[in-house]
């Protein structure tokens, strides 16, 4: 019983902390700029769409130094963009066709639990179909990955997964059509490293990839 009461107390405290912090943050913003929230409530016109991992250690805006209103965000397990997933697809459609973002960033990270789980020979229930997409990335790049071992292999799979998801973003009608008309959005593949806290640009070649995939996936007409 005592333990149960303690758990309850802890839950209440961690819950209260969020509200306390939020109040402090809101007060500080208003003090700096009394119109801050009023302006925000009028609308958003972010330049970026960020597709990242749900991992708690990578809050997109914090690690890029962006403020509220600057980046539209989708986060899921292992930053995947699957073509039959309405959830991610509706984010891409809204960001590209309605908000007209200029850049789409797919950001993975080294030490990704989702990528590790995908490569674990184990039945993970409802996670199986989701993580299968990562196994498929492995199969696509089997030759290269099989020359590597241990951490190096995982790190490379994280990078290749990001690059494949960049390709998946480009396979959408929304991105292809908008790009044909406006020359944006441009797609980028990045990886966040905990060792140094830095973003690594994988130098995803937007123009070359577009040409390459449109041989089969052209949806512009």
């Amino acid at each position: 019983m005592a333990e149960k009461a303690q758990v309850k107390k802890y839950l209440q405290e961690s819950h209260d902390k969020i509200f306390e912090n939020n109040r402090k943050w809101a007060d500080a913003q208003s003090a700096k700029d009394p119109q801050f929230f009023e302006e925000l409530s009028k609308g958003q016109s972010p330049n970026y769409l960020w597709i990242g991992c749900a991992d708690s250690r990578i809050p997109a805006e914090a690690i890029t130094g962006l403020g509220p209103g600057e980046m539209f965000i989708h986060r899921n397990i292992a930053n995947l963009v699957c073509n039959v997933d309405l959830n991610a697809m509706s984010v891409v459609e809204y960001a590209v066709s309605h908000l007209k973002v200029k850049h789409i960033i797919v950001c993975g990270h080294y030490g990704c639990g989702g990528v590790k789980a995908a490569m674990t020979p184990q039945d993970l229930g409802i996670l199986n179909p989701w993580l299968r997409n990562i196994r498929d990335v492995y199969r696509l790049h089997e030759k290269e990955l099989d020359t590597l071992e241990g951490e190096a292999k995982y790190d490379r799979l994280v990078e290749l997964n990001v690059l494949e998801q960049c390709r998946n973003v480009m396979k959408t009608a929304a991105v292809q059509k908008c790009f044909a008309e406006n020359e944006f959005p441009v797609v980028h593949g990045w990886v966040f490293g905990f060792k140094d806290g830095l973003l690594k640009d994988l130098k995803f070649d937007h123009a070359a990839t577009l040409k390459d995939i449109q041989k089969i996936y052209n949806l512009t007409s």
Partner: protein
Amino acid sequence: MTDVLDHILTGNRHYRNQTLTHDPTFFDTLSKGQSPSVLWIGCADSRIPETTICASQPGELFVHRNIANCVHAGDINAASVVEYAVTHLKVKKVVVCGHTSCGGAVASLGDAELGEVLDSWLHPVRELRRKHKSELDALPDDNARAVRVAELNVRQSIEVLRRHPAVRRAASDRGLTVHGLIYDLGLGELRVLEESGKGKGNGLWSPN
């Protein structure tokens, strides 16, 4: 166009330097793993960066964000996030956060075509609007209606979450709780959704 991109990469270097000045071992500690206590399900909207508005630290909130913070039954994307966060990371709370002036909620007040994918995604939210027509009609304007739809949608998402096998198990085994929040964009403030009649009187809205 590269300027816009440089903006974030410069921001990242700044963040990293600031963080390391504060705590030289910060990233080293982070690289060892995560044990967030909260799963945050929020809107993709750029104006609600969860970590900033809650003044949280990296490592505290596991995050899923999509159009209008929906948890639809049968959505494998959100279901995977819930399963991973609840069963594997053992978060203590799941929070669904809607907000005022939500583009998804506003779009759900009508049936204007937004594109096939978006229309499919928002279908359940538009259904909610139809179901609560008389209540919504009685409200003074579309702003108020959109806020109400956002609230109803948070509740709906919580109902779906409650039926998720992992959530059900964790709720009875270790006291996992599910909460609904609304973020008021005009004030920068979070408020708890109270369910009429079922409020527990402790400021927490918990459907369990």
